[in-house]
């Protein structure tokens, strides 16, 4: 991977169609190589996407307004790379990993490329390896504390084969570009190592020993996910939904609450104001686990919808590469991408300009392959030193017209193991989060190793209870359909009971108020407590004289349970509502 061409290839612009620029090159050019096109003194970054003869077709990551034929171009000899080192956390980058905070002015200026890491910042380095150690790529040489997270300084991923640590610096203060170790390869050649390394974003970092199937619960605090369709640590999931169904609110909830060491948010082609929400809230909100501010564990890749389209495609890869870097340190990463459809659209725009034969809905033919390749970079891994790390990846999909039979949704469905279908109907009736309990699934619930872990960490009968609840929901829906077809008074009373019992679960477990300071995040202990509560109600026999009594009775039950959800767990207030609840249940309970 280490290219050391001394002389860079140059070229001249020979064609311009929007952000597709054709360059006549005077030397060798690599597919996906980065080049800079000079427009009146400003260098615009571009990526080679096709080569025909000496013509390189490049996609420019900027507006090409004012660009002229004959403008000089310099090819860089490397692919699009992420800069990896301490200082990534709390930063906000554009899709190409330029620090947005470092840019001057209110408006983005084409060609204003800021560095990803601060070269002047002093870090307290502590060595972990000793002279004489045999090391491989991604092995830990030392660490610095980045916010509250131990940031491991690793053997660069591009190093192939075994190396011996020839020297390593003593504990002390260093800058990222200082040499902290010298490694010797099998031929006796020395390589100095600093705290920064570079990696081409489109290539997966595979410097780990083993990648097992995900086997344990990844807690999110969102009841309808954790309880009904759990995410596994190192798993993949996706959230498709029409606009207005609450995708972004849900993703924000995950980024706030999920039990991860590091959260990477790729805001890919979405609304800028939504990203601003993260900037404003995360420096204020606390991570419930560590008590530190959320921003300290978060990195945001902001390539919003009005930023250059080509960089949008790069942004998800940049985010994934950063996630892989932190995973190699033995950390638990949550990667969120909102929205992968915008990324696919960026591919479509380019494919269209290159006049490629289109696939379904004018998307490029290899879209399914690109998507599955990307999702496969997530996962739980055992590192070479037997430590573990994971990337849990959840992407949103914005299906055109809310129709799930479109190429991006279908391609994603083939690879992602958890599917959180947002339903327009639930959103319309303000049942948030609008995850449909019946259409959604988590394949992880079927993994024996996941079931085992749920049994040991929550309770022996947990999986059975979850299955029971899913059944109750299906029966409730059937009953409600029958009632709608036949009328309230033409169906047996049991139908009303089946429907209302499912409504209790819907209101208390599935629905959750993301904006309430208590209800927004439910730890698994509390989820278990409330699930037991609603299952008790489900298993209780009630007496009614007519169907007209069913609705008001269950409305009261739901009201009490809801008040419990809004109260501090096991507080005075919580118990008061719980006692009220028992009294109401007693009113109609069949006495044995």
């Amino acid at each position: 991977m280490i290219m050391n061409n001394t002389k860079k290839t140059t070229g001249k612009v020979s064609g311009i169609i929007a952000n597709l620029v054709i360059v006549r090159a005077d030397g060798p050019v690599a597919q996906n190589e980065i080049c800079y096109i000079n427009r009146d003194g400003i260098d615009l970054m571009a990526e080679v996407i096709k080569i025909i003869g000496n013509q390189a077709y490049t996609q420019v990551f900027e507006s090409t307004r004012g660009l002229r034929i004959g403008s000089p171009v310099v090819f860089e000899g490397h692919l699009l790379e992420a800069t990896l080192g301490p200082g990534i956390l709390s930063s906000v980058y554009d899709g190409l990993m330029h620090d947005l905070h470092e840019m001057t002015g209110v408006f983005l200026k084409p060609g204003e490329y800021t560095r990803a890491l601060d070269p002047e910042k002093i870090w307290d380095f502590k060595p972990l390896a000793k002279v004489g150690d045999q090391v491989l790529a991604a092995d830990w040489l030392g660490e610095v504390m980045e916010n509250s997270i131990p940031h491991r300084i690793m053997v660069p991923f591009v190093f192939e084969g075994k190396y011996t640590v020839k020297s390593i610096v003593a504990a002390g203060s260093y800058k990222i570009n200082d040499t902290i170790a010298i490694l010797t390869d099998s031929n006796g050649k020395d390589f100095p190592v600093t705290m920064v390394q570079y990696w081409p974003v489109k290539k997966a970092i595979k410097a780990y020993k083993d990648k097992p199937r995900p086997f344990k619960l990844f807690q999110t605090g969102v009841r309808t996910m954790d309880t009904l369709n759990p995410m596994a640590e190192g798993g993949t999931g996706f959230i498709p939904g029409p606009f207005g169904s609450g995708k972004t609110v849900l993703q924000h909830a995950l980024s706030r609450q999920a039990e991860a060491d590091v959260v990477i948010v790729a805001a890919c082609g979405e609304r800028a104001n939504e990203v601003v929400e993260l900037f404003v809230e995360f420096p204020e909100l606390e991570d419930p686990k560590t008590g530190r501010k959320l921003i300290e564990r978060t990195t945001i890749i902001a390539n919003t919808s009005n930023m250059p389209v080509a960089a949008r495609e790069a942004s998800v890869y940049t985010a994934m590469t950063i996630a892989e870097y932190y995973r190699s340190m033995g950390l638990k990463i949550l990667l969120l991408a909102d929205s992968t459809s915008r990324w696919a659209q960026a591919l479509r725009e380019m494919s269209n300009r290159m006049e490629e034969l289109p696939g379904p809905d004018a998307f490029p033919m290899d879209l399914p392959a690109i998507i599955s390749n990307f999702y496969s970079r997530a996962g739980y891994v055992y590192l070479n030193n037997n430590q573990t790390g994971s990337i849990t990846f959840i992407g949103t999909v914005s299906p055109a017209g809310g129709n799930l039979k479109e190429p991006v949704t279908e391609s994603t469905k083939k690879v992602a193991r958890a599917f959180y279908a947002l339903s327009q109907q639930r959103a319309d009736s303000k049942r948030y989060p609008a995850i449909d309990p019946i259409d959604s699934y988590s394949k992880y619930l079927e993994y024996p190793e996941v079931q085992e872990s749920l049994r040991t960490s929550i309770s022996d009968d947990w999986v059975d209870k979850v299955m029971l609840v899913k059944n109750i929901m299906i029966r409730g829906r059937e009953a409600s359909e029958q009632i709608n077809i036949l009328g309230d008074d033409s169906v047996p009373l049991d139908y009303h009971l089946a429907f209302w019992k499912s409504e209790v679960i819907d209101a208390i477990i599935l629905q959750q108020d993301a904006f309430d300071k208590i209800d927004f995040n439910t730890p698994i202990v509390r989820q278990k407590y409330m699930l037991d509560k609603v299952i008790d109600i489900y298993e209780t026999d009630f007496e009614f004289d007519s169907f007209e009594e069913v609705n008001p009775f269950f409305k009261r039950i739901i009201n009490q349970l809801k008040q419990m959800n809004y109260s501090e767990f096991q507080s005075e207030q919580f118990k008061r509502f719980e006692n009220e609840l028992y009294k109401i249940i007693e009113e109609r309970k069949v006495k044995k």
Partner: protein
Amino acid sequence: MSPVAFQKIYTHITNITKATCSLKASGIGNEELAVVHGRLAQVVKIMDDEVTLQVFGGTEGIPSNAEVIFYNRPPTLKVSDDLAGRFFNAYGHPIDGGPEVEGEERPIGGPSVNPVRRRQPSELIATGIAGIDLNNTLVTGQKIPFFADPDQPFNQVMAMVALRAEADKIILAGMGLTNDDYLYYKNVFENAGALDRIISFVNTTEDPPVERLLVPDMALTAAEYFAVDKNEKVLVLLTDMTLYADALSIVSNRMDQIPSKDSMPGSLYSDLAKIYEKAVQFPSGGSITIIAVTTLSGGDITHAIPDNTGYITEGQLFLRRDTDIGKVIVDPFRSLSRLKQLVIGTKTREDHPQVMNTAVRLYADAANAKTKLENGFDLTDYDQRTLDFAKEYSEYLLAIDVNIDINKMLDTGWQLFARHFNKAEVGIKQELVDKYWPEK
């Protein structure tokens, strides 16, 4: 916009299509403006020495030996305070008989705001319409369209919102506006004595459709001048964005691009986002808020234009005629303002979120009851009460002729709850019920 001296004049056009023409020329910049046979055109493609120009007014009657003069700059607008109170066409030329505006010449369609320099929108825009203020509260820096069928009174509602919104400047971007609607806006603004706050860029149905593509960028360049240079609160009205998107599809079609869904160009999402994302709250206090109209065909929101719009904008507003009360209401089910969470319950009274949600939920119950009634089933007592509630909710809160402040809307909400339901049925947080439930 007269050509400057010393410019090379080309007279040999090699290719002419309905919307474009090509010629051999050198030293030309991408997206540069030119005049072809007296008509404004813009560079859309350059291959070696062959330059393709998109002619805004269409190519009818252009001869192959027409004069072509390049301007050496992209489309621009001259900005200054003198823009206020004026009416312009898509090129920024006055159409009100007044003189050309003098000022600093700025390229239109300029760069985006750095997301980290944006401020979180936090200032409520009160309209007095409860269907908006109560259920779908608007905030400065927001972008939101009306999704409306062509026969709905969206222009009237938009004019009303604009005048009540207390903006420093209102910029009207009319695309494919009928002459009648153009005169309507002019009249309403004039009668309200607000003309000095209004700037209009208008492409009417009488003008060539491709010219429309310039209108939003012109309007937003003017908006950025007032919001950034003058720290003003600017409200931009875009009507009708469907006609704008139609113009995009005409151009892409004539440039032989492969269409994606509904014959729209594959870049529709990015094209629309570039416009809507100009809505912003600046750190210096100025802001640009965009209220747009996207007309639907037969209420179909799955069509590519409303669909892509919905993914870009921060919510959408639907109008509907409620036959029970015989008035137009803001539909509480399908309308949504995503930014309302930033102000409701904090900038407004604490009970706002729950009153809003509860009322909509009860209204949904009423809709179910109505379905039952239509299917010939008996109604329960609760069903009947939801129907009574729904009618009053429509009449006193949802109708667009309501004009009250937000506290009054919330009080009205509680009164309606108490009149038709008991406390358990509304299911609101106990402490709020204790505080606001009206005792008889």
